Each structure stands twice: as structure tokens, then as C-alpha cells.
């Protein structure tokens, strides 16, 4: 018996019991669609997190941050801890050749430190205000769209200049999406906690890949029928939500000023003895090559051990920690998805086995007839396996269709930056799984059917 005939017989048999076959397929449909949908969700999450990782400056970025809590064995040295100082910068510049772009940061938390920015009668509160060197642009993956970044001279002379994120512009000068015209605030003077600062530059609008696409789409639509929307795009609220969107929002709500300016304007009278507090919040730098990350970290450690007299009042933050976290989260999600899908597929397989057993026990006579006219044990075995396979593969194909619909409705109902992405790989894998389930589930019924003795089968009513 050739394979095509066997497949045709299988399809006919499934077609003859449409409703029953459909119910049987349900398990496989659920299994396959959940497998594909889960993998799409995980993939989307992975993409979103990777995007955020790049937006934070990539894997090469190393942050040294001040740490108030010393390790247990150094607790008694707390009052001798020097903290991160400018001298650490110079020490690293000369003592750690594997890192570059060593940049000091003094960071003020907009809400905790109650920092107000005002322009005329408008008021805004930045998420962060940084006093730093221009090198921060590369470290934080910032891009100045209008105006310029402050430079070394601005820093040396402690000029009152600042570069702001787009959302602060929106708060102070109006959102172009609402007002319909874009104001570029370069040259305008704003008050940061009452002190005048000239805006010399504004960053581009940072957004996730998804927001970018939506914007582009809206723009194209507006071009198509200009009467409907005259430049005003509907208000989508603040950009970004969820864990990776946070990074983009943070960047859009930041203010950057020169380090010296920060020290003089915001630190001068801060210390208890009325001397300036010279401590940095952190030192950011980049490893020259990701391959030597461990060695570079050791270099930094050695330098800081010396300049801090061995007191560990600082700590490393590498994006690799974050990347590992991302990997862990993703593999956890993936694992739970695979488990759910596997359970559904096993249940589906049991359903197929059940229905095939029922089907052969009502077709004992048919099997007897087929054997009497020359069907071998193998012919019958293959026929039953094929029927089971046909059910499983049809279920698998429908499952793929359902998964596409499922993912699209997930995207439509819960828009966030982690757009699920269906990969061909996942679809092929899920379809393969359904085929395997069909084969395995058909095994026992097929074996039973093929072992029927023709005479007993013919006598059976």
C-alpha cells in the first residue's frame, strides 16, 4: 500500500467523523498555540530588554558607585571611608589602561531632592539631574538632536548651561503632539531650583522600537488624509511603560549640567562645616573590549583599593549583571511556557490515543475485511498511525493559525513595548511536536489493531 493512499484513507476517516476529530484536535490546538504564543511573548520580552540594555550604554559600560554600607569586617572604618572623589578619576585614568572614557557623575534625584525647574509660569520636576563631563553622551547612549552638548570649557568655567530631555521640554514649553507645533527651546533660560540655566541642547526623543513604528504609522496616515489631523497626533500619554520602557522615560526626563557647575551651584553650602561636599555619586566608564571585562574589573579594583586605603566603600555595577538577570528571567518564562505547552500536548496526545482506541474497537470488522483481502500487519499499523498523525497535524496546523490570532489579539489588547514576536523556529518546533505527539499517541492503538486476527475480526459484531 503506498503512502499517498494511506494518507488519503486517514484523511477520509478523520473527515467521516468531523465533530469527533475536531474535539480530539482541540488538545493539540491548545498545545501548539500556547507553545507558539509563549515563545512569541518571551521573544518579545527578550527584544524589549535587549533594547533597554543598549539604551543604557551596552554591555561595555561599568559603573562604580559609592556604597555607604561597608562590608562587616570593615564596619569600624566607616568614618575613615573617603568616598568616591575626583582623585579616583585621575588614579583610574593613569592606572587602568583597559578602560576608557572615565567620567565622574554627581546625581541628584529630582523627587527626593525636590528639584523644581520653572519656565515662566510652567513647572516641571526632572527625574534626575546629572553633573558630569561631556563623555556621558557615549556612556549613556545619548544623542543631542537640537543645539549642542556642553563642552570642557563650559565645565571648566562652571557655566550655567544645561541639556534637557524631551519630556521636560514638553512640560515647560508644550508638547508638539498636543499643540501642533514643535518648540526648540535652545537658548531659553530656565530656573533650576531658582538658579538660571541656559538650555544649550536637547536630546532626541528616546522611544522603544514599537513606539517608533507607531509614530511612523501615524505620520503616514496623517499624510494620507491631511484634513483629518492637522499635524496633531492623538495623545498616547507618556511614552514607555513596563520594565524596559522605564529606561527610555528616565532618559527623556533627565537634565545634564557640567560637573563643576553642579559642584558650585548645588554643593557649595551643602556640607555641615559649610565646605563643599566633594563626593561623587559614581564613576562611569567603558571597557575597551568586552572580552577583557574581568581583567578590566580587576584593574579598577586594584586602583580603587589603593586610593581608598583598602576600604571598600564602593561597588561595581556592570550591565552584565543586568544581562544575566535578563537571561534568567527569560529562561524562567520560557521554561514555564514549555511546561504549560507540554502538558497541553500530552493531554492532547492522550485524547488522540483515546479516540483512536475507540475508533479501532468500532472498526474491528473493517480491519478483518482489510486483512482478508490482503492487508498485512504493517499496512494496518501504518494506516492507524496515519489517522492519528492526520488528526495531530491538522490540530497542529490549526494551532499555528490560532497562535497567530492569539498573538495579534494580545498585541491589540495590551500594547506595551514588548511586542510578541512569532518566530518561524517556534512554529516549526511546535508543528514538529504535534507530529511527534500524533505518532506516539497512535502507537498503542495501531499495535492493537494490527495484531487483530482476521478470523476473530471478521466474526466480531
Amino acid at each position, binding site marked *: *500500500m*503506498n503512502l499517498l*493512499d494511506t494518507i488519503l484513507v486517514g484523511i*477520509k*476517516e478523520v473527515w*467521516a467523523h468531523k465533530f469527533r476529530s475536531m474535539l480530539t484536535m482541540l488538545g493539540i490546538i491548545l498545545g501548539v498555540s500556547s507553545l507558539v504564543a509563549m515563545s512569541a511573548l518571551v521573544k518579545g520580552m527578550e527584544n524589549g530588554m535587549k533594547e533597554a540594555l543598549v539604551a543604557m550604554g551596552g554591555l561595555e559600560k561599568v559603573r562604580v558607585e559609592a556604597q555607604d554600607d561597608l562590608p562587616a569586617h570593615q564596619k569600624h572604618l566607616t568614618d575613615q571611608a573617603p568616598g568616591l572623589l575626583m582623585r579616583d578619576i585621575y588614579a583610574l585614568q593613569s592606572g587602568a589602561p583597559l578602560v576608557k572614557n572615565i567620567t565622574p557623575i554627581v546625581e541628584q534625584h529630582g523627587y527626593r531632592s525636590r528639584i523644581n525647574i520653572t519656565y515662566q509660569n510652567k513647572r516641571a520636576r526632572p527625574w534626575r539631574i546629572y553633573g558630569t563631563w561631556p563623555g556621558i553622551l557615549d556612556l549613556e547612549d545619548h544623542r543631542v538632536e537640537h543645539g549642542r552638548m556642553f563642552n570642557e570649557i563650559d565645565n571648566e568655567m562652571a557655566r550655567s548651561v544645561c541639556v534637557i530631555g524631551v519630556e521636560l521640554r514638553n512640560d515647560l514649553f508644550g508638547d508638539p503632539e498636543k499643540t501642533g507645533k514643535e518648540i526648540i527651546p535652545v537658548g531659553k533660560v530656565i530656573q533650576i531650583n531658582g538658579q538660571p540655566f541656559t538650555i544649550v541642547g536637547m536630546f532626541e526623543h528616546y522611544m522603544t522600537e514599537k513606539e517608533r513604528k507607531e509614530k511612523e504609522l501615524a505620520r503616514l496616515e496623517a499624510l494620507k488624509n491631511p484634513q483629518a489631523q492637522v499635524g496633531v497626533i492623538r495623545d498616547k500619554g507618556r511614552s514607555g511603560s513596563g520594565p524596559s520602557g522605564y529606561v527610555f522615560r528616565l532618559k527623556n526626563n533627565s537634565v545634564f549640567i557640567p560637573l563643576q557647575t553642579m559642584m558650585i551651584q548645588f554643593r557649595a553650602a551643602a556640607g555641615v562645616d559649610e565646605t563643599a561636599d566633594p563626593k561623587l555619586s559614581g564613576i562611569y566608564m567603558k571597557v575597551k573590549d568586552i572580552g577583557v571585562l574581568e581583567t578590566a574589573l580587576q584593574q579598577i579594583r586594584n586602583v580603587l583599593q589603593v586610593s581608598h586605603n583598602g576600604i571598600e566603600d564602593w561597588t561595581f555595577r556592570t550591565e552584565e549583571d543586568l544581562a544575566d538577570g535578563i537571561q534568567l528571567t527569560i529562561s524562567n518564562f520560557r521554561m514555564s511556557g514549555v511546561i504549560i505547552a507540554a502538558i497541553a500536548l500530552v493531554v492532547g496526545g492522550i485524547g488522540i490515543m483515546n479516540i483512536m482506541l475507540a475508533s479501532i474497537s468500532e472498526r474491528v*470488522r*473493517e480491519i*478483518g*475485511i*482489510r*486483512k*482478508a*483481502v*490482503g*492487508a*498485512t*500487519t*504493517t*499496512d494496518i499499523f501504518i494506516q492507524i498511525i496515519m489517522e492519528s498523525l492526520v488528526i495531530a497535524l491538522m490540530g497542529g496546523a490549526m494551532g499555528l493559525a490560532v497562535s497567530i490570532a492569539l498573538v495579534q489579539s494580545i498585541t491589540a489588547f495590551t500594547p506595551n513595548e514588548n511586542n510578541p514576536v512569532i518566530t518561524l523556529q517556534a512554529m516549526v518546533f511546535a508543528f514538529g511536536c504535534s507530529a511527534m505527539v500524533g505518532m506516539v499517541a497512535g502507537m498503542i492503538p495501531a499495535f492493537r489493531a494490527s495484531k487483530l*486476527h*482476521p*478470523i476473530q475480526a*471478521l466474526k466480531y459484531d
Partner: protein
Amino acid sequence: MALIELRDIKKFYHLGGETIRALDGVSLDVQAGDFTSIIGPSGSGKSTLMHILGCLDTPTSGSMRLDGMDIHDATPRQLARVRGKKIGFVFQFFNLLPKLNVAQNVELPLIYQGTSGRSRKEKAMQALQLVGLHDRAGHRPSQLSGGQQQRVAIARALVNDPRIIFADEPTGNLDTHTGEMILETFCKLHQEGRTIILVTHDPEIAALTPQKIEIRDGKIAQNVDAKLAGKESRFKLSTSSH
């Protein structure tokens, strides 16, 4: 050489610790072209004999050759091949597959021979023509009368051009008139030179066939019953076979 040679065939069943001797030393020859009836009351072992002759079952002991091939120690796979190539069955209850149409039912044996789709259809139509049902090829078995269904079954038995045709009580489920038509078909096939073995419990049907074998208690009765030998058949066939 005889088409079928049976030598001292025994078939025992074990049922609840008791051995049932369904066949107890049967030897017989069937020549090509014979039209033989196997007759005996129910429980005599005639069905068992037919199953062994038809390669549906294997004997407990004894030897059997069919068309020059040893059957008694053949594997189930070899038996299936022999059934598919050399044997056609006609059953009392027609045994057509209700989900297939007439032509597909007739094609069934060819599917397992690996015959290609087109030549399958041709051969099936030829076989249906032989039994005069080629105009019903698209019907379902349930749309046909009992006699027509049995003729479809005969077409199915003929389609792979077998060396021998077995008919197990082919008229048992039909009224007398329809039964006559079916028997007439068999006689016609015999005249065309086919080898037919017909199992029946009805002496009047057995009287139609040139060769007769009577089974009693698992053995071949030495003398065919006198009343059977001289029996005039009540069937009036237009094509008498003797």
C-alpha cells in the same frame, strides 16, 4: 500438480482446559478449475477448513501447499500476501465497507497490492462489469439490495484475478430467488475456468457443484451421503454446470 494439497491437517482449539478437535486429519486435493462444495452441519469444522484453505488461519499440524507454495509454516505477512494475490473471498454477510462506495470497495484488494490509482479504477470497473453492476460504481453499499451487495463482494473477490475463490455461505443471507442469481454467477465463473470452493450447509446448493466434500466431526466423511449424491437440486439454473 493439484492447486491445493492438504495432508493430514489438524486444527485444535483449547477452550476452558478442553481441547476441541475442529479438524482432525483432513487430506484433500483441489484441482485448478474445480467447483467444489464443502458441506456439513454447523460445528462440523467446515468453516475452520475454509479458513485454513483461504490462508486466514494456520493449522496446528499437517502440511498444505497452495499453487506450489508451502502454507503451513508461512508467516502472517506471507499469508497476507497470498490472500491478496491468489485468493478472493465472498462472505455470507457481504462484508463491504459501508463508508466506501461500490468502486472503492472493489478496489480495496488492489490498494494492498500497490496497484496505481488509474489501473485500480480500470480493473474495478472491469470486475463490476462482470457482475453487471458497473452503473452502480458511485453508490454506497447501503443503497444496494442484498443481492447487489453480494455481487459487489464477488466483484471484489475477482478484481485481483485470484487463482481461487472462496465463498462462505454466499446465499445464506439472501432470499431464494436472489440466491439463485448469485449461484448462477458462480456457475458462470466456473464455466470461465475459475476455481471455486463454496461452503454451505444446504445439500441442495451442494448438489449444483461437480465436486463435493462432506465434513463430519472434523473429518472428511468417507462416502458422500447417498441422499446428497442423488439429490436433484431445487434450483433451476439457466446455466447448469453439469
